[in-house]
């Protein structure tokens, strides 16, 4: 592999296991790989292969047993909890299968949430939120509550929320898993735009072959190990 640019994500010897009663169940075993900036990576594999766990570890919401993850030069595996939370706020955007919007907040307020953790003024926040909502084509739905939006629209609000702090990486867990074909196509096209137009790095867990097609690279996980494309 030609090392022209340093990788944005470097995973080294990552292992993780869960305790289930007396037993220890290994989920990830000694995984190493890099992700280049601006890459659109799909993680695939059967249920229980550890792909979601891997995504959670990269996103900094779970702790590894051993190994390191370095993202943008920061080794997140050693960060204490509070610092890790602050790091997530500025560096990772989350896209979930079920959108995970806060039902009591409007589209605008949902998108504004991550900005509350920054030092931006009210006006700056408003500008940012309006920009990203226009980007996802929902500028006219700002004051709608999630329950007033379709699934596809909700996922676009969620993408706007993920984008609003301008993070380096976006993590997506089955982003099209709950959507019909048309909406899923729109979401994938939007994600593609984020990669090509805005240079974002996307790491996506998916079962959907159509989603996987959009990705630049596929990583297959089986029983906690990478089966191909590890470089």
């Amino acid at each position, binding site marked *: 592999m030609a090392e022209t640019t340093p990788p944005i994500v470097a995973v080294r010897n990552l292992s993780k296991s869960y305790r289930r009663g007396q037993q220890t169940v290994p989920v990830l075993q000694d995984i190493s790989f890099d992700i280049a900036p601006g890459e659109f990576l799909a993680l695939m594999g059967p249920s229980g292969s550890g792909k979601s766990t891997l995504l*959670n570890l990269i996103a900094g*919401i779970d702790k590894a047993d051993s190994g390191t993850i370095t993202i943008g030069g920061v080794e997140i595996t050693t960060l204490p909890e509070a610092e890790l939370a602050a790091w997530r706020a500025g560096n990772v955007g*989350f896209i979930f299968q079920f959108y*995970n919007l*806060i039902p*009591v*907040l409007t589209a605008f307020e949902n998108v504004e949430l991550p900005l509350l*953790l920054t030092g931006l003024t009210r006006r700056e926040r408003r500008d940012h939120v309006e920009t990203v909502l226009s980007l996802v084509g929902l500028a006219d739905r700002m004051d709608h509550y999630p329950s007033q939006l379709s699934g596809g629209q909700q996922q676009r609000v969620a993408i706007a929320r993920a984008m609003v702090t301008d993070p380096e990486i976006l993590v997506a867990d089955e982003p099209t898993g709950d959507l019909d074909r048309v909406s899923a196509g729109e979401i994938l096209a939007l994600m593609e735009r984020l990669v090509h137009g805005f240079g974002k790095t996307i790491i996506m867990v998916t079962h959907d072959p159509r989603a996987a097609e959009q990705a630049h690279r596929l990583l297959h996980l089986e029983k906690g190990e990478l089966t191909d494309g590890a470089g």
Partner: protein
Amino acid sequence: MSIPYSYSFRNLWTRRLTTVLTASGMALVVFVFAATLMLAEGLRKTLVDTGSYDNVVVIRKSAQTEVQSGIDRSQAAVVETQPEIAVAGGKRLVAKEIVVLISLPKRGSGKPSNVIIRGVSATSLLMRPQVKVIEGRMPRPGSAEIMAGASIAKRFKGGGIGETLRFGMRDWTVVGIFEAGNTGFSSEIWGDVDQLMQAFRRPVYSSIIFKLRDPSEFARVKERIEGDPRLTLEAKREITFYADQSQAMAKFLRILGITLTIIFSLGAVIGAMITMYAAVANRVTEIGTLRALGFQRGSILAAFVLESLFLGLLGGVVGLFFASFMQLVTISTMNWQTFSELAFTFTLTLDIIGKSLIFSLVMGFVGGLLPAVRAARMNIVDALRAT
């Protein structure tokens, strides 16, 4: 920065029914809490307002009340000649009074209740500007005439103007009704002191009231009266005298009320706790999402505690709202110090409002803390998986 307040507030609005039910439980407790304090305050205010700052009450030493007191004529003569007594229109403002308890039937139920009969002098009214004859006239000295406090006229048989009351083996005609505001005098019957002493065959006065020409001379006159070997009397400022009377009862009400409300509040707190635990359980994914977005555990804790505080405050405001209507209610009860009927109203003060709101916030806080801690301690991955 933390999770916006609107998040906590709107979640309460979203589950309005649960919110209303939980808040109602708290409102009920706050209502009882406020009402008891209002009752104690009403009693205190009624008795304290009965006195004036520049009036001095002289009673027999260690007689807490006028009913228990006795001052014979020679002692009364000594007190009457104190130089600190104010003079108005050529008259010394001093009144020798007698206080007797009699039993009269109430209107409606006909049940007997104790009433204070006060034998007064012509100067008695001058020293009590809060007492005003609102109907009829003053009783003439030397006659079997009486006037009744407004509260007596309303609540006791034969207390109205033109009616007669029988006590002391004589019939007494009510020739006047007097209003004394929200004071204990409203629950008294006044007549001529000499007539009443005869009727009740009392050779002694109950108390001597006088007005000071200068309120700051109280200490001197008190020292002289209490130090005089011929007198076994004590002198108190009138306000102190009545405030002392209210203390035991007000304290009893307060202790009873606070004990009751603390027990009730346990129920309300548990109700709030159940509601908040349910709220946390319903929003596990939300909590996971907020944490993933970078909100700290403390922010989650604060958001849920705030939600519960809102809930408590809502209960407090509603409870106080209904308690404020209690001000329209007049309660008459036995004044255990004098064993006489005393009518008073529930009185709402800023202090009571403050205490009730703090009480409701404390209930909200206690109810919400454990659920909020649970929310804050959640593992992000587990919470997100709860979808």
